């Protein structure tokens, strides 16, 4: 359970640059009206960011080429199926973890 002043300062620096983008919109949006076009653009952010986070796991840069991570793509199929079928966060997470554990046991 130890740390140093330098480390605490580094963590504080990271905390500050993480905090500012998090709170800025909450302060700005409260004090000004956003143009319609920006609101239309923002409506696409949830689907875009969530799909980008899922798709990020499908690929990996290996030396010169971006390759497909087949294990992640295969695990995605039953996970997506359970998500569509149950519309439940907890059941999807359990299905995903069990599928991945099974795949790693078989092919890992």
């Amino acid at each position, binding site marked *: 359970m130890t740390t140093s002043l330098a480390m605490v300062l580094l963590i504080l620096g990271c905390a500050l640059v*993480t905090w500012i983008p998090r709170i800025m919109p909450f302060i700005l949006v409260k004090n000004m009206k956003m143009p319609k076009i920006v609101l239309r653009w923002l409506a696409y952010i949830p689907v875009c960011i969530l799909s*980008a*986070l899922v798709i990020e796991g499908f690929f990996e840069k290996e030396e010169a080429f971006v390759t497909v991570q087949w294990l992640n793509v295969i695990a995605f199929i039953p996970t997506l199926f359970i*998500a569509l079928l149950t519309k439940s*966060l907890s059941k999807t997470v359990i299905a995903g973890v069990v599928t991945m554990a099974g795949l790693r046991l078989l092919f890992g």
Partner: protein
Amino acid sequence: MEQIEQKPLTPDTFMQGIKDCVPTLLGYISIGLAFGVVGIASGISVLEVFLLSVLVYAGSAQFIFCGLYLAGAPVTAVIVTIFIVNLRHLLMSLTIAPYFTKYSTLRNIGFGTLLTDETFGVSVVAAGKEGRLGGRWMDGLNITAYTSWIAACTVGGIIGQWLPDPEKWGLDYALVAMFVALLVLTLASIPKEKLMHYIKLIAIMVISMYGMLYFMPGHLAVLLSTMVVATIGVVLEK
């Protein structure tokens, strides 16, 4: 999640916020534990694992912090990288903030401070279904997620030395599975006639991510692709 589906409107209570956070806890706990283990393995102390989870409170950034620390990266490189990795929160905050304009600036700072990928996902699904978000509900969701994250990271740090590789058990996939579920739930709240438009955008997203990964790290590709594909979404509307 299940509660939202059966009731017409989510009650704006702290308790309901806690309940709606529960389905995400498996994700938080497994990733938090994994972070604790990785942190100790990269040579940072349990106290530092605790400080990172309290002060930075962002899964991917904390992992990258350990990686950079282990690689002996200079202070400025660590801070700039963390800034870029977490810049996506700006987009998330921009999306969520318009629902909270009636609350005080101080409370808005509170909502923003505890915004994560997961609480963003849960609240965006609720907002999509009901067209509104409650402050007490948001606090319940945020504080449950925050305390669980700190606890999981710290416990992960403490037991880290004895825990076998968490990847082997598929626990790292909990995070991706959670994003899959949140994506499906978000799409479920979109009007039927717009669904094809969104499916097209996801297909474009696959191409965009693949292409961008040639030139930049994953977190930057997520940020840029989101901005590019959202713009394409506006341009191709109707």
